[in-house]
Each structure stands twice: as structure tokens, then as C-alpha cells.
């Protein structure tokens, strides 16, 4: 019979599940986040607690069979939040641990290829955030941006923004997942805030942002339009590069 293993949705939690699977020598399992679980009469389900020590042991143990690159891939696949990706991750780990040679490039295995493709999507979303974040300078001197990435990629973005904007305080807030990453000139922290509801409303901008901020936004907007070549117009390509769901956060698309 298949056992359903529920966890808290954190990466540490998932690794604790892996520990549990090996500890109890479970064969047929299915892993699911607490919040996605809908109880029914036939399932046998167990809630697994997140335990940092066990998670750490699993993560370090993986280094025996997996390159650092492959481990990162597993973490990125996890951030995709794709339904059932946990099962694929478990499959990958089991295959890697039982194999005598590296399995990382065996793209004829559809599950390994699935991880590969998921990672590619997550990487692309991470890259989009590097590109599409638009900081607005608040009256209290913080460069502030809101985003709604398709996947939970902000943990991957932190390092890029920290090295690049080392001399300014900044905050990138994920509205969908209700947390942000904040840099205070020393380090990046994860924070949760009650954001004002009208913070992104153009007509309320002068409450939160400086006069210069709004003027620079207009300059950027005009620059963007001046650098377009009308006789080469290609809206299809334009939208392929910047899908419409990102537009509401882009200064050049705002006015």
C-alpha cells in the first residue's frame, strides 16, 4: 500500500521526509505538502516533522553520490513548487544513492529529464527577477520592489542583489508568497510585512515615494519609448520576452 507522507512545505521538511523514508525502509510513498493534502478514507498518511539535524545528514550524505551542481538542481526543482515534484526528487535521490556511477546526465530517464527541465524553468524565472525587479526609492531611503514570480525564486536572487547593490538598502517583496528579502547594508534577511494596500497605485505614489523618484520613473518610461524602432515593430516577440503578467511591475509599462 502507498503511504502518504505530509510535510510542512520547507526544503528542510522535505529532506526530513527523505530521512524518514530511508529510516523506515518505505517503498511505495507519495510526498505532499500539508496545505495540499485532502484527507480521504483510503489513504494511509503520516505527518513528518521538520528536523534540522536529520535534514542536514541527508543533505551532506548526498554529496557522496551527487555533485554540488546536482544538489543545487534538487533545491531549485523544489522551489518550482510543482505538484508532485517531491516524488521526482525522491526518485532522483534513490537512484543516485543506489547507483554505482553518477546518474546526473542520464537524460534517457524521463524523471531525471523532468528535473532538468524544471530546473531550467526555475532558472529562467530567477533570471527574470534579476531583470524585472524595479526599485522605487521610498521616502525613508529604501529601494523597494514588489514581485509575483511564478516560482519561489527569491532565495536564489538574494546573492545577486546583495553583491550588485552593496551600498544601498533594498527590499524585494513577493506579494504572492507574502515574504520579502531585505538588505540592510550588511546582510540579507527574510522578512514578512503588512504592506499598505495602495502601495502600488500610481495615484498614491507621492505618499510613499520621493519627488525625484517619480521624475526618474518618467525619464525611464520616455527613454524606453524613444529607443523603440517603429518600422521594426514585432509585438509577438516583445510579449514573448516580457509576458504580460510581469507588466504591472515594470516602470516602463506603468504610465
Amino acid at each position, binding site marked *: 500500500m502507498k503511504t502518504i507522507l505530509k510535510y510542512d512545505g520547507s526544503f528542510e521538511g522535505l529532506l526530513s521526509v527523505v530521512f524518514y523514508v530511508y529510516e523506515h525502509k518505505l517503498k511505495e510513498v507519495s510526498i505532499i505538502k500539508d496545505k495540499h493534502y485532502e484527507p480521504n478514507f483510503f489513504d494511509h498518511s503520516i505527518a513528518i516533522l521538520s528536523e534540522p539535524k536529520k535534514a542536514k545528514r541527508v543533505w551532506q550524505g548526498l554529496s557522496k553520490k551527487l555533485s554540488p551542481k546536482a544538489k543545487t538542481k534538487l533545491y531549485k526543482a523544489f522551489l518550482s513548487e510543482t505538484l508532485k515534484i517531491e516524488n521526482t526528487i525522491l526518485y532522483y535521490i534513490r537512484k543516485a544513492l543506489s547507483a554505482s556511477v553518477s546518474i546526473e*546526465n542520464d537524460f534517457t530517464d524521463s524523471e531525471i529529464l523532468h528535473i532538468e527541465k524544471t530546473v531550467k524553468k526555475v532558472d529562467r524565472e530567477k533570471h527574470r527577477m534579476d531583470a524585472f525587479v524595479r526599485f522605487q*526609492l521610498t521616502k525613508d531611503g529604501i529601494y523597494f520592489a514588489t514581485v509575483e514570480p511564478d516560482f519561489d525564486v527569491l532565495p536564489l536572487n538574494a546573492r545577486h542583489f546583495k*553583491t550588485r547593490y552593496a*551600498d*544601498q538598502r533594498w527590499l524585494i517583496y513577493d506579494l504572492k508568497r507574502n515574504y520579502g528579502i531585505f538588505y540592510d547594508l550588511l546582510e540579507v534577511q527574510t522578512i514578512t510585512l503588512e504592506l499598505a494596500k495602495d502601495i502600488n497605485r500610481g495615484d498614491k505614489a507621492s505618499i510613499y515615494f520621493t519627488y525625484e523618484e517619480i521624475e526618474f520613473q518618467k525619464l525611464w518610461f520616455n527613454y524606453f519609448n524613444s529607443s*523603440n*524602432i517603429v518600422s*521594426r515593430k514585432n509585438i509577438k516577440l516583445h510579449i514573448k520576452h516580457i509576458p504580460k503578467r510581469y507588466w504591472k511591475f515594470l516602470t516602463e509599462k506603468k504610465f
Partner: protein
Amino acid sequence: MDFKRINEKLEILADAAKYDVSCSSSGSNRKNSNKGLGNSNGMGICHSYTEDGRCVSLLKILLTNHCIFDCAYCVTRKSNDIKRAAFKVQEVVDLTINFYRRNYIEGLFLSSGIFKNADYTMERLIAVAKKLRQEENFNGYIHLKSIPGASDELMREAGLYADRLSVNIEIPTEKGLKLLAPEKDRKDFIKPMEKVKNEIIQYKNEKKLLKRVPIYAPAGQSTQMIVGASGETDAEIMYTSAYFYKSFNLKRVYYSGYVPISNDNRLPTIGSAVPILRENRLYQTDWLLRFYGFDVRELLNKEHPNLESDIDPKLSWALRNLDQFPIDVNKADKRMLLRVPGLGLKSVNKIIKARRYRKLNWENLKSIGASLNRAKYFIICDSTTFETKDRTSAQLKSIILSNSNSKFSATLSNQLSLFDNHNTLSA
């Protein structure tokens, strides 16, 4: 800051700079030291895309569009009746910093019309870059235009602050240059390019011996050619390109389909279509030369002075060399795999990795991402089914074309008829 005045200037000087297609911000290695602002190591980022689908990575502007030259193909030519403006050095610095801090851009691409003389103009460009680096502690990307005819001392200085330097040769052939820009001399373009090339070589040599050498133009040099303004063939363009790649170690050559901006009778008239498809084929050829191990003579030569417009240059080459196919994907070396139509760099790398585990079949190839609708005529794999029929190039071409959808199909039927007209005119 007088935002209204700045805005007027920005509109004029961004509009004038937009025909320079380079927007690359990759390939440099400037780190953010001492908690300064910005970095430019690793891959570039396109922060936005204009409605024509082009990447916006840098603040791309002219310092001024006043110019003493009168090149027919250029929108800022002296005789053109347009609004003129000029930025002050500090204004460009402020714009760059403020755009950069908001994550709009990767850095600055500064070009200029030539005012007074080459050296005077080059000095002003350098002044902007110097100020950004020294006063603002800015480590973002800076691309400066090398002004044709600028002195060696200035080119040396420019490379100390810029990540990339570029001179646009614009017209692929000397005879074209004579016709469209009679005041300019090919030698003036080459001189700063030569100087920068030698400085880069010297920098690399010194770096092997000494620990601390000031970095010099880490993202190298590039150039740009206008396509379709002077009646040149594809072969002339690509041979020029290959020459520049080789002689000056260029990182990139850009091809810019001529956008008609003038009623000059030496040029295509206003309203004629931008040769976007041709531009695309030239870029494909450029990629084949740089990443796929092709020699320009294999793709373009006396018998084939122009690229085929209805199929890509790799397929075109394969159809002319059917005797080299089919190849076995489970055995062929990388060089040959790269020559298969429908296999790109990424698929080839995946194939090479994956075939270590087991022999690949059609299903595997498909899930890896190969375009089998083209590739299947040129390969065999671990399967008993494969294309057995002997077909001529013409037959293969028509089968492949009928089974594929070109994003250019609309343009294609239009442009083909345009080409036909053109041929009858010139015949």
C-alpha cells in the same frame, strides 16, 4: 536636476542612438569591490524589451548628435534637418547612476556624433566613464564608442574605464564606403581597433607575470555593419566579418538591417522594408562560424554569394553536402553532430552526455529537444526505422519546407517577390 530639460535631451539622444544594435552587457569581469555600486561579471541581463523585440540592457545614448560628418546612411548626418542636443558630462553620470540603482539597466553605452574633431569627442566620452568609475565607485558595465581617428593615447585611456569598446565599420565594402561616406577612410576605423587589440594582448601578457595590472577593456571589442544600404552580397558581408573576427579578435560583429531614414538616391527609399529576414540569416551564419565550427568558405563562396532566404544556412549547407550524411548520433564526433540540421549546441551537449548511459533512440532524441522534423533525414540512431529513401537535395528541401512553419512565412512570400523585382532591375 532640471528634469524637463533632461527629458527633452534624453528623447533626442536616445532616439539617435537606437540604430546601434549592440546591447550586450556580458563577458566582462568587473567585481564590486569595497562595497561600491554594481558589478558586471558573468552573464548580461536584458532588463526590458522594446516593442520591436530588442533587448534593453544598457542606457544607450549619444553624448551629442551634433556632427561634422555627412554620411548618407546616418540619421545624425550634418545635412539632416533634425533637433540637436548635447548632454553635459555630469548629466550622463547622474542618469546612469539613478537608472542603475533602480535596476533598469546593466550600465551605459555611450556614443557620440563627432564635434570639433575625433580626439575632442573621445576625450568627452572618456570623461564620463572616468567620473563614473572614480567618483561614483561604479562597477557596472560601460561600453564606449571608439571614435574613428582618435589618438592612441586616448584609446589606451578609454580601455582603462570601459568594459567594451567598439568602432562601427558600418559599410561592409570599401567601395560602398566611398559612395556613402566619401569623407571617411577605412583606415580611420581600423586604427583605434588595432590599438585596443594590442592593448588587450599586452594586458593579458602582463597579467600572467604581474599580480596587479589595471584591467583593460575586459569585454573586448565589437563592431557593426549596416545590411542592405550599399548593394553588397551576403558573401561580402560575411567575409568582412570573418576578417574582423580574426584580425582584431572581436567579441561580436553586429548586423543591422538598414532602416531607411533619408531620401538620398544612393540609398533604399523611405518606406522600403527593413531586411529583417536577411539580417536573421546573417546572424545564423555568424553563429555557425563562432560556435559550430564552420568556415565561412563552406557557407558562402563564388557559386553561392548569397544565403538562401527560405531555409537556414546550416540546412542549406547540409543539402549541398548530402554525401556526408546520414551520421550515427551514437558514434559521431561533436564536430559532425553540430553540423546536423535540427541539432543545436544544447541538444548536442545533451546527446553526448546521455549516450554514455545507453544508445539513444528516436524517442530519447525527441525528449532531449532535437528538432527531428529536420534532423531525421540526416541521422540514424538506435532504431530499426530510419529514412531509407534516397532523395535529391531539392526533394528533401521541399519535404522539410512543407513540414515546417517558418516564423518568417509571411515576410518570406513578400520578400521573395521583392527580391525577384530587384533581380530584374539589376539584370
